[in-house]
């Protein structure tokens, strides 16, 4: 990474990640930095390696080479793959969030919305029932879910509401880094617009660093400051989102951009 005049260190530093499945190279020499408040989109078609990249950064997949360095709130730098399971889980519950494409993978579908939002707070030691409930209701309101639904389980929610609940569940502890895997796909267009607006506002107001995997260039345009384009497990182009969309240089980026209607 080039040095610049900002002397703040990155929140996340990914260096030379490499991952093979048998003979197939899923991820080849992936490197990038991510700063607080920055939304970085990873785009590419299925099989390009973007999900492998996300899961390796998240610590869910072990890389064959390379490392993921995270600077926690206390300033210490952690090698994510050198942490033990308990340390990884503590990080995932406090300073990190993970928003799954399918909300059912990130929620407890049969417990109440309030308990879903409160779970991370309880993990941090919150015990006062009234406080937990009040905070859960505040967050339901923030993601535009009627707080009166606090006792209903997400199984009774629509797809868009479930996704918004998953976001509330993640953001309630003010994480510093949120990983998102196709958060808007699988939703109706009108529902998508509402979720995008919400994500755009919350990421800015909370100064979240976000690593966002999406195949949708319009989502990248709306949410991301920077973008990585992946093809065959490699990052083939990186830069400001509008630069890559309006003046793509790599043949594959040109193909992606020219294949959609008005990104």
């Amino acid at each position, binding site marked *: 990474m080039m040095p610049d005049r900002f002397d703040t260190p990155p929140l996340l530093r990914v260096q030379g990640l490499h991952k093979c499945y048998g003979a197939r190279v899923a991820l080849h020499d992936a490197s990038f930095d991510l700063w607080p408040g920055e939304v970085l989109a990873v785009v590419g078609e299925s099989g390009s390696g973007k999900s492998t990249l996300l899961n390796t950064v998240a610590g869910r997949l072990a890389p064959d080479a390379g490392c993921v360095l995270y600077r926690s709130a206390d300033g210490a730098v952690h090698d994510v793959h050198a942490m033990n399971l308990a340390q990884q889980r503590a990080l995932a519950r406090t300073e990190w969030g993970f928003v799954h494409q399918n909300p059912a993978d990130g929620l407890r579908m049969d417990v109440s919305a309030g308990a879903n939002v409160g779970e991370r707070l309880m993990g941090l030691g919150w015990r006062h029932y009234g406080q937990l409930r009040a905070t859960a209701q505040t967050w339901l309101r923030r993601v535009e879910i009627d707080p009166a639904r606090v006792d209903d389980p997400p199984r009774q929610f629509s797809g868009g509401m479930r996704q918004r609940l998953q976001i509330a569940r993640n953001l309630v502890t003010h994480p510093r880094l949120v990983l998102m895997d196709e958060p808007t796909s699988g939703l109706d267009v009108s529902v998508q617009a509402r979720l995008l607006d919400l994500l755009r506002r919350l990421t800015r*107001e909370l100064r979240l660093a976000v690593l966002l995997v999406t195949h949708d260039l319009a989502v990248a345009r709306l949410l991301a400051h920077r973008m990585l384009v992946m093809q065959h497990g490699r990052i083939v182009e990186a830069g400001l989102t509008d630069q890559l969309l309006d003046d793509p240089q790599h043949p594959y980026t040109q193909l992606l951009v020219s294949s959609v209607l008005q990104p």
Partner: protein
Amino acid sequence: MIHPPASATAEPVLSLRAVAKHFVLHLRGSTVLPVLEGVDLDVAAGEVVVLDGPSGQGKSTLLKLIYGNYRPSAGEIWVRPDPTRSPLELGRATPREVLELRRNTIGYVSQFLRVIPRVSALDVVTEPLIEDRLDQPGATAAGALPDDGNEESDRAVAREAAREEARRWLARLGIPSRLWDLPPATFSGGEQQRVNLARSLIKPRPLLLMDEPTASLDAGNTATVIEIIREARARGAAIVGIFHDDAVAHAVATRRVPMARFHAAPVPLPGSAREVMPA
């Protein structure tokens, strides 16, 4: 290390040196489209440079290069963030530096408003001022959105001041107040363009790029935009603009630059001619 151009007496806000832009179309047999060649241009504070020439000569392309939206094929683009700082070269600046230049230094009035679903005209215009505040050191995640659901009072006060400023801009540009709380997606072309102007101009930046800002405006609003450009110039902004209407160009220009001198010859670069021909 390459240093900024030495014409230090004028201290230009913007300096272009030998800037070229051609587009390589990989999906069309790597056809090369040359657009600009050998662009040398200095713009100082208080200047309004109008780019003249028929469409297709690269006027908008040049503005997009200066905004960092397009990447030059050759040459250097130097932008001085403010009078106290030394210039940055866009090609060597990191993405974060370019974003910071856009927030604080370079204003860009595009031809069309890119609407954001569900965001009201008032918020669209307010955003550059709010963003600025979020960017300040000390704006922490926890402080930005306290859990009681109410904004901290000083933050709320700043937000309301920004909104008040946005209302002034919307009113000045003749957007009826009944539209302020609506998303601009359903507005007319002229209304959208005026929202776009308000959003781009609300923050007084040292360098202003304007791509046909009066294209879809009536005479009254055009006169307002001319007035706004003159005010920006008077406060010391450096301005580069494209105006389809020669009367507007004449009213604001301190210097006119014919694009013909920068226009790349419409000859494909070596090696591409063969590939343009169908086999």
